[in-house]
């Protein structure tokens, strides 16, 4: 089938969105950008392919008359099992590399390093094999999941003879290798294993129907008719110049499609903040973005999270517990750590400081919005920071104070806005090639 892909290479995460010829979303993928944009783009796109095949599976099941609860449950199980297979493949790779590193020249002298690593991985593997409930809060990235579990186990395993830092240094070294290795995580490559697990105990006639549907989807050729890249790393994509679009245009169009009433868009990305005005067709009419200084952009929150030894996704919930917002003017990323420590020393509470930091970020965005022509109705907030509830709370408050009542749109999928816009440009480019007018 013919598809169109948009890839948004952000400084923190890389996103891919795949559309069919009608512009309907088939699949999406996201991964951390690491230092290798090329690989990140491939992984995000592969991920979008996986999701796209699940969309095709939904369509196949519907076509086969499988619309009942059983089919929905089967699909859910299949996805769950596929994720397990993928994760276990990555974990196995991590384990193999870690053990290899442990016997190497650099660390070989730590007597029972290998044994302790084996133990850590045994525990993680056993843990990951257990069924989990959905809806557990946490990062979706393998890196974050593995890091969190590995460090928890390493803390328990470490002692005076073999320090925690040594164990973590092994992890830090090999996680990069695993991230940069091409491990087969595709639907085609892994679905059979997942399917076998899912179909155990299924009634024979349903078993046959499901299997046929899944295998036909696995064999369906998916052809990417056109791909368009956007985001900070777009110049590094192996795309011709005409297949590269500015993320400002992509966010404008993506926001328009998600919320057709959009007039003003705010996108807070990893290293830039953009205030965009769009017309009724999603066409950008004006924009402003931060200058050379990236103070107060998404990356700033990343530094703060590192300083606080927290995940970036944990900042918002903690800031929401604030009862008294601390007033902070500087959002300089370089001084973020010092600012934070100073305030903690002064006895200010972590949640209050965090609430102040979120407000400071939004204040900076408000200045850019004013410069771009203000906030019109409706106002759509996109980018990764839009999923941070504390940032959203500060934004709502400041919008109300400065502009009065405005409809504020925030999609749970806001992080995909740029990639969605790029994919739509790909559909349009494909269409105009077919019908040159």
């Amino acid at each position, binding site marked *: 089938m013919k598809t169109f892909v948009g890839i948004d290479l952000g400084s923190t995460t890389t996103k891919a969105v795949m559309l069919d010829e009608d512009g309907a979303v088939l699949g999406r993928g996201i991964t951390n950008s690491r230092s290798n944009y090329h690989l990140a783009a491939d992984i995000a796109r592969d991920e979008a392919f996986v999701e796209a095949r699940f969309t095709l599976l939904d369509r196949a099941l519907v076509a086969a008359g499988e619309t009942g609860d059983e089919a929905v449950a089967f699909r859910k199980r299949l996805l769950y099992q596929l994720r397990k297979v993928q994760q276990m493949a990555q974990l196995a790779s991590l384990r193999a590399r870690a053990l290899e590193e442990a016997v190497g020249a650099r660390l070989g002298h730590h007597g029972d390093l290998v044994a302790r690593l084996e133990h850590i991985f045994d525990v993680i593997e056993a843990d990951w094999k257990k069924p989990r409930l959905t809806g557990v809060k946490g990062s979706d990235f393998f890196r974050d999941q593995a890091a969190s579990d590995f460090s928890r186990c390493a803390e328990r395993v470490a002692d005076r003879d073999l320090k925690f830092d040594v164990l973590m240094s092994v992890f830090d070294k090999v996680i990069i290798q695993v991230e940069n290795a091409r491990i087969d995580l595709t639907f085609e490559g892994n679905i059979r294993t997942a399917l076998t697990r899912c179909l155990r105990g299924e009634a024979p006639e349903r078993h046959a129907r499901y299997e046929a549907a899944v295998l036909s989807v696995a064999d369906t050729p998916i052809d990417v008719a056109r791909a368009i890249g956007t985001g900070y790393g777009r110049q590094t994509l192996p795309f011709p110049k005409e297949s590269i679009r500015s993320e400002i245009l992509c966010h404008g169009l993506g926001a328009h499609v998600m919320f057709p009433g959009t007039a003003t868009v705010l996108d807070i990305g990893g290293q*830039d903040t953009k205030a965009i005005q769009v017309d009724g067709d999603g066409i950008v009419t*004006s924009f402003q973005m931060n200058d050379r200084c990236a103070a107060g952009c998404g990356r700033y929150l990343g530094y703060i999270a590192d300083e606080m030894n927290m995940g970036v996704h944990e900042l918002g919930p903690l800031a929401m517990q604030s009862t008294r917002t601390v007033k902070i003017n500087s959002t300089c990323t370089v001084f973020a750590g010092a600012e934070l420590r100073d305030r903690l020393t002064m006895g200010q509470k972590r949640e209050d400081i965090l609430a102040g930091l979120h407000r400071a970020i939004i204040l900076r965005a408000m200045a850019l919005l004013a410069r771009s022509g203000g906030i019109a109705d409706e106002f759509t907030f996109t980018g990764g920071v839009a999923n941070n509830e504390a940032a959203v709370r500060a934004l709502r408050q400041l919008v109300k104070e400065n502009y009065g009542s405005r409809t504020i749109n925030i999609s749970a999928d806001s992080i995909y806005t740029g990639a969605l816009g790029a994919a739509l440009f790909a*559909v349009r480019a494909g269409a105009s090639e077919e019908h040159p007018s």
Partner: protein
Amino acid sequence: MSTPQEAASAKDGSMIKQKEMIAGHYSALSRAKADGKKVVYTFVPGNLTELLLAFDVLPVYPEINALQSGMRKKSGAYIAEAERLGHSEDVCTYVKCDIGMLKSGNFGPTGEKLPEPDLLLLSYTGCFTFMKWFELLKREYNCPVAMMHVPYQGDGVFTPEMRDYVVAQLRTEVVPALEALTGKKLDEAKLSEALARSRVAEDDLVAVLESAKRRPSPIDAYFGGVYYIGPIFTSFRGTEAAVDYYRTLRAEVDERVRLGLGPLTPDGAITHEKYRLVIEGPPNWTNFQEFWKMFSSEGAVVVASSYTKVGGVYDNGFRHDPERPLETLAEYCAGCYTNLNLPTRIDMLSRYVREYEADGLLINSVKSCNSFSAGQLLILREVEARTGVPGGFIETDLVDPRYFSAANIKNRIESYLQMIEQKRRNASTRAHAATPTVAPPRPAKKLEVLR
């Protein structure tokens, strides 16, 4: 606004000529003391070059030295030197570059030593920094200062009373200072002859700049334009050399028009003019070629710019008038771009957009210069509203390399040009209604991630 050695790879005769003129001037400056010539430091906006020529003194323009240092990648070290001396990061980087150069031996752009000033002549007070700059230089050189106050055109007009006020200062302050410096009386005939030559060169310059109304434009009126204004805004206006330069330049441009050629850039001629832009604000000098390339590589040609009016504005028909020497000098001083109020600037830029059929107005807001930067966002919104073309905004600096963030600037320029393109495409789609529209995607399902 002058010719660096690294200029365009494809050089026209005019370019070679300008290079020789500049080299000759710096060489004369290096010999000034030996030749018994007096040296006057003065600024570009509203300068009184013809008057200086009439007294046979040599002018030095500190801003030109600073921008030349910027183009030669020397400004970063000079600015650092000035900052070590206590100048804050917020001080205009032309000033800091000049002070740093002075403290590093005062070697000019060609490597020859610059002579110390015998007089500091401040003929334009619209820029407060100019005054402070000369206060610093006065402390350094302990030389006399001649200063006149030029009223801002706050109401959008330069009244006869204002003109008389400036003429009176020329008579009572500036001319006596030059007479005292040289020991000579003002030779009015000599001044008038220079003014007559200015007029001839000015007509040619205006013809060159207005050639950009054609499609394709034979010139780039910003990146190329800064070279074209070099002689006329500095030491050469009123000289035979300038008349000759502009005659040659005009002939070259006429020839490009005849052949239907686009502007010359460091990477060759632009063969496909994709975007026509008006640019407001000075260029960045530290990464001038890189900056230019961000436009030329996209087929973006600047058809008009306000910066090419920084020394003086000829748009409203002003030409130096040999019949009214001091009056004409007064009018020139008061008519430079930054002495015009915002409504006048908005009128001018809106007219450029219309007359030069531009696709957009892009503002390059430089950190150093309040004379340009103050009010730019207002200008942007107003020109957008009046002309309907999209505005864009980028930020750089004159000669501080730390303020040129290439990735960020390129990103903004590309986004801006794509925005123009998208608007254009959308307009034509609407007109033809031929391209199929894209159905909005179904609401995307949140991918469940289990572990």
